[in-house]
């Protein structure tokens, strides 16, 4: 029970006025970002990151992670009241949430959404509290080959398990890894892919790319759509909240199932989006009366929201324990760690106890405070949508530019951001996924270092990746995942696995 003691220590780190105020500011900004169209979790965190450069790492991560929780909460507001998912992972929440609002049960639906978000992240945080220290102490024994094998596993699982066309994932990932290599080579000190440009000497900053890819491109995409909206306004009374909470125990199976799905998909790079849909579909399949889903059933709100939050939170587990982010937003937080001078990886738990346990404690506290905050302030946030997009869009552009410039004080980075904005817009429209790109860009140099160190250690023999049981099984698993679609197809042909047929409707 060492974890409990350390957690209490984390709370002690956290309970200062300054941190609590930062936490509130983070949550409010996060909900704001989650509600606004054209901004989401990753964009919000990326744009607001420069604000934290002058803070100490613990305050900074507390504020940033609170922005993230806030964004997760905020997405539900627009899905339920306006039938507009503020985030992709709240699409499934609209299926039953919006019908509930139409029936005049908006307050009930919102309470259900916020409460289940809370439960989902609580389960995930519990998992992090007890599992992350174990994984990281195990990973302390890792050498370069093991680390490279784990990176390989991450990349391969994106290709093998992703829903996008395989070659598009490969393109996105190799492009990210390549761009991560631009600039000075850390091992030999030689310049690579700079083509004589002094600006490229610094390399392509990960955060600049992210601000362009997610911030600017999202503005361009949002403008393509009709931005008129019409929705319900709601305020939540204590009576409704208590009513929903009284009924909670009835839905424990749904809540538990969704939490489990969410945690699983959050740790593996499946993501909150897949988790929310899977949570919804499974709740529907196991219900006695599946046809009542989609007509305003409260379980239809519980299931996807719990899963989305469990997944969004547990995505931080591999980031903390191994230095490998489980989602786009986690990747940005990882980029932040590096800016603050922390070296992500298993050593974090040893060298920066205050930081890690402060962060974990802030997950508990941030969720409690967030729940109270959203329940009491929904009407204010819903009315943010009255602000015309023509006013919001240029402000977001300016914030993006400030963020991009602040990272290295370079005008070139503002142009780079604009370039990445266009790339992000085009990639999104032709279905090249951005998450593998982000992940590759942030992990690229670490993966390369691990590879080169293992090669130097073994004298250039690739067998080093099968030199012991641990590294061998990770590498083999990675390669199996890379070719998973092929293997799955072969197994099905031989008749080893039964392919689920779509049920007749």
């Amino acid at each position: 029970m060492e974890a409990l003691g350390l957690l209490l220590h984390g709370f002690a780190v956290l309970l200062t006025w300054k941190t609590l105020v930062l936490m509130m500011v983070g949550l409010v900004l996060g909900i704001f970002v989650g509600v606004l169209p054209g901004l989401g979790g990753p964009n919000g965190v990326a744009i607001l990151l420069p604000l934290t450069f002058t803070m100490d790492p613990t305050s900074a991560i507390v504020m940033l992670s609170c922005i993230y929780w806030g964004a997760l909460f905020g997405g539900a507001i627009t899905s339920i009241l306006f039938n507009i998912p503020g985030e992709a992972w709240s699409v499934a929440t609209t299926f039953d949430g919006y019908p509930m609002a139409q029936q005049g049960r908006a307050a009930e639906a919102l309470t259900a959404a916020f409460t289940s978000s809370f439960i989902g992240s609580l389960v995930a945080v519990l998992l992090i509290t007890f599992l992350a220290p174990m994984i990281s102490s195990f990973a302390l024994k890792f050498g370069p080959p093991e680390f490279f094998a784990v990176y390989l596993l991450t990349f391969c699982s994106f290709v093998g398990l992703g829903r996008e066309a395989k070659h598009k994932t490969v393109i996105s990932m190799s492009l990210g890894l390549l761009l991560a290599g631009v600039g000075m080579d850390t091992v030999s000190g030689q310049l690579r892919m700079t083509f004589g440009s002094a600006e490229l000497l610094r390399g392509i900053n990960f955060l600049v790319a992210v601000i362009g890819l997610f911030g600017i491109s999202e503005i361009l995409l949002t403008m393509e759509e009709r931005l008129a909206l019409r929705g319900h306004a709601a305020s939540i009374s204590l009576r409704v909240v208590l009513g929903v909470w009284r009924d909670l125990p009835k839905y424990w199976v749904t809540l538990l199932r969704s939490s489990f799905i969410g945690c699983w998909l959050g740790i593996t790079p499946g993501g909150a989006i897949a988790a929310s849909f899977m949570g919804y579909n499974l709740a529907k399949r196991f219900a006695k009366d599946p046809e009542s889903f989609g007509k305003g059933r409260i379980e239809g709100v519980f299931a996807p929201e719990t899963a989305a939050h469990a997944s969004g939170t547990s995505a931080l587990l591999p980031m903390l324990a191994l230095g490998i982010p489980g989602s786009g937003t986690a990747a940005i937080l990882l980029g932040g760690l590096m800016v603050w001078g922390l070296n992500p990886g298993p050593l974090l738990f040893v060298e920066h106890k205050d930081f890690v346990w402060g962060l974990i404690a802030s997950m508990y506290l941030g969720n409690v405070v967030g729940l109270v905050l959203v329940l009491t302030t929904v009407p204010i946030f819903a009315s943010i949508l009255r602000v015309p997009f023509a006013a919001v869009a240029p402000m977001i552009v300016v914030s993006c530019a400030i963020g991009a410039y602040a990272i290295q004080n370079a005008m070139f980075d503002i142009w780079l951001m604009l370039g990445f904005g266009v790339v992000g817009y085009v990639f999104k429209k032709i279905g090249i996924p951005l998450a593998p790109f982000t992940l590759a860009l942030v992990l690229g140099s670490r993966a390369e270092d691990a590879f080169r160190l293992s090669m130097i250690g073994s004298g250039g023999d690739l067998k080093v990746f099968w030199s012991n049981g641990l590294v061998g099984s990770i590498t083999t698993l990675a390669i199996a995942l890379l070719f998973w679609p092929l293997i799955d197809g072969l197994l099905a042909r031989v008749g080893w696995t039964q392919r689920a047929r779509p049920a007749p409707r």
Partner: protein
Amino acid sequence: MSQTDLEIVVDDPTAPEDDSPAVVSSGTIEIVVCLLLLALAVTLGYDNWHTGASWDSTGPEPGYFPFYLSVILAGGSLYGLVAALITHREAASTFVTRAQARRVMAVFVPTLLFCLVTQFLGLYVASFLLIAGFMRLVGRIALWKSLLTAFLFTAIMFVTFDVAFDVIMPKGPLEAAFGY
């Protein structure tokens, strides 16, 4: 129960029409993107080959890792190119309609100008011009509201970043006149 009778209604006066003709199909863009990526992969691959993509006594040379990545990138984009060429004939899904393109340009061009102005006049002047101009010209919002919003937002940004958090932004002649 709760008061859900209050409706929030927001209109979009310059929304793109739904029946606008397509400018270009997704397939065409996919072909163009794959060609560009292929060119990039060849350029980077060549550069890395030059840097040294083989082994020496100390292990892999600096160009080794990125060289093979450019090979993978080239392979992926070649595959994408062929796939897009094959499916191009049948499926013609729209990449962007004319009305959508106009709207996207309505954001992109001001953003481009904003970056240019930032380079010469500093970020805060550019920010004021972008917000006021965009609200007035694209959003058709009253002039005084646009100017006021732009001024307030820019001022808040200045106080937050340059004064409170010491994050220094690029500045031009106007800020210099005030002694910053």
